[in-house]
C-alpha cells in the first residue's frame, strides 16, 4: 500500500486553504487533535493513499495540492463512522464533500475517475426524469466509464423477476421540476 510520507514534509502551505475549506464545509478542521479515531473506524481506509486523520492534518497545514489530488476524497463512502466517533465533533464527511467540490472546480486530476463519473451520470439522469431511471443510469455509466459489461450478467434474472423498469419513470410537472433544479445553479452563483 502506497501511503504518503508527505505528512512529515516541510513544505509551504497554501495561504487561505484551511479557511476556505472551513467556510465551504462549515466545519472547524483546525480543532482536530490527531487522535486517529476517524482512521481507526474508516471501512475504506485500507484503500486510501491518505488516512482521514492525515488528510485533516494536511488541510490544517494548508497543503492544498496534496489534499486535492489524493484518492481519499473519492474513495470515502460517506458512511459517517468517522464523524459519529470524532471527539471534536468535526463533520468529516462534510469536509470531504467540500474538498471534492473544490477539486472539481479547480480541475485537479482525479485518481478514481469512476466516482465523479458515477455522480455526474446519476445527477443528469435525475435532472432529466425527476427520478432515477436505473436502467438508463447503468447503461450510461457503463458507456462513459468504458466498463461496458459491468453487471450485465445480472440483467436477465432481474428482468425476469420484474426488477428492471425498461421505460423511464414519468411524473407530472417535469417542466417545473427542471426549472426548480436549474434555480439551484442560479442561487449558487448569487
Amino acid at each position, binding site marked *: 500500500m502506497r501511503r504518503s510520507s508527505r505528512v512529515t514534509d516541510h513544505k509551504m502551505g497554501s495561504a487561505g486553504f484551511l479557511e476556505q475549506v472551513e467556510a465551504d464545509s462549515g466545519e472547524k478542521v483546525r480543532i482536530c487533535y490527531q487522535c486517529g479515531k476517524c482512521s481507526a473506524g474508516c471501512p475504506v481506509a485500507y484503500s486510501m493513499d491518505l488516512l482521514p486523520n492525515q488528510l485533516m492534518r494536511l488541510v490544517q497545514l494548508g497543503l492544498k495540492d496534496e489534499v486535492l489530488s489524493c484518492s481519499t476524497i473519492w*474513495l470515502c463512502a460517506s458512511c459517517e463512522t468517522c464523524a459519529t466517533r470524532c471527539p471534536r465533533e468535526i463533520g468529516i464527511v462534510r469536509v470531504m464533500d467540500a474538498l471534492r*467540490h473544490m477539486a472539481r472546480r479547480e480541475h485537479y486530476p482525479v485518481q478514481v475517475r469512476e466516482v465523479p463519473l458515477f455522480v455526474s451520470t446519476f445527477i443528469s439522469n435525475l435532472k432529466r426524469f425527476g427520478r*432515477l431511471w436505473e436502467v438508463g443510469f447503468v447503461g450510461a455509466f457503463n458507456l462513459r466509464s468504458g466498463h461496458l459489461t459491468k453487471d450485465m450478467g445480472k440483467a436477465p434474472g432481474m428482468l425476469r423477476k420484474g426488477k428492471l423498469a425498461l421505460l423511464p419513470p414519468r411524473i407530472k410537472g417535469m417542466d417545473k421540476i427542471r426549472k426548480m433544479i436549474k434555480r439551484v445553479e442560479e442561487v449558487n452563483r448569487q
Partner: protein
Amino acid sequence: MKLAFYPGCTLESTAREYLDSTIVVAKAIGIELEEIPDWICCGSTPAHMADELLSISLPAYNLQLARRMDTEGVTVACASCYSRLRAANHAVTTDPEKRAKVGKVLGGDYEGDVPVSHLLEPVGEIIKQPDFQSRLKQKLSGLKVASYYGCLLVRPPEITGFDDVEDPQSMDRVVEAVGAEAIDWRFKVECCGAALAFARPEIVEKLSGQILEDARDSGADIVLVACPLCHSNLDLRQCDIEKFLGVDLEIPVLYFTQLLGLALGISCKELGLHKHTVNPVPVLRKCGIKVKGC
C-alpha cells in the same frame, strides 16, 4: 395511523419486493400509507457529493409536497432517502442562510417542520401494542436472524436521531416480536460499501463479504435489512462476493417487512420472496417456517 409515504427510486425497480411487502404488511398491521404524489428523487449520496444546495433542495421539495397532505408526517423505507430527508430538515432548521437559499430554489419558504420517520419507527410502535401477537399466524421460532442496520439509518446521530448509534435494537425488536431469535454479531452498523458498487466494486465485495461472513460465523440463518441499497450489495452482488472471497455463502437477505409478512401469514408471492437472488425459501422451510404460495 396515517402517514405520507416516500418510496424512493429503488423501490420502483431493483427493490420492488421491498415496496410490495411494505404495502401489504402496512395494511395488515393498520398503518395507512399514502404515497406522496409525483415525488422526485432525494438526490441520495451523489447529490451531496455534487452540490450541497441541490442535496437539500431535492428532499425539501418532496417534504413541501407532503406538507399539503393530511397525514402525521412522512415515513420512508430506504435508509438513504431517510437520511437525506432528515438532513434537509436539519439544514433548514439550523441554518437560516440555507433556509433562505432553499426557499429561493423552491419558490417558497420551507420551515423544515414535516416530521420524517423510517418505516421501522411506526412498525416499532405497532409491535408494542398488546393485540399485535394475536394477529400473528405463525411464530418464527427456530430462525436465527442477524439484523443489519448499515450506516445511514443511525449515522450521523444528530441528523437521524434513530436508536443507539453503535448498537441499535429497533430491528432486533421486530425479530423478537415475531418469535425469531435476534443474534448478537459484530457488523450490524458496519458499511456495506454503498455506492462504491459502481466505481470500485472490489471494495463492496470486501466490505459486504465481511458482513456476510460475520453473520454466518455468528450462527445467523438469514440477514435482515431495512435499506434497498444494503440489500442490493448483500443479495444481488452475493455471487460476486463469493467469487471475490472464494467461498460459498448462500445467505438469504430479507427485508424486515418480509419477515413480518411471513409471521402474518402473507404469501411468498405477495411478499416478493421469489425476487431475491439468494432464494430464502429452503432455509426458511428448514427452520420450520411455513411459506405459502411458492
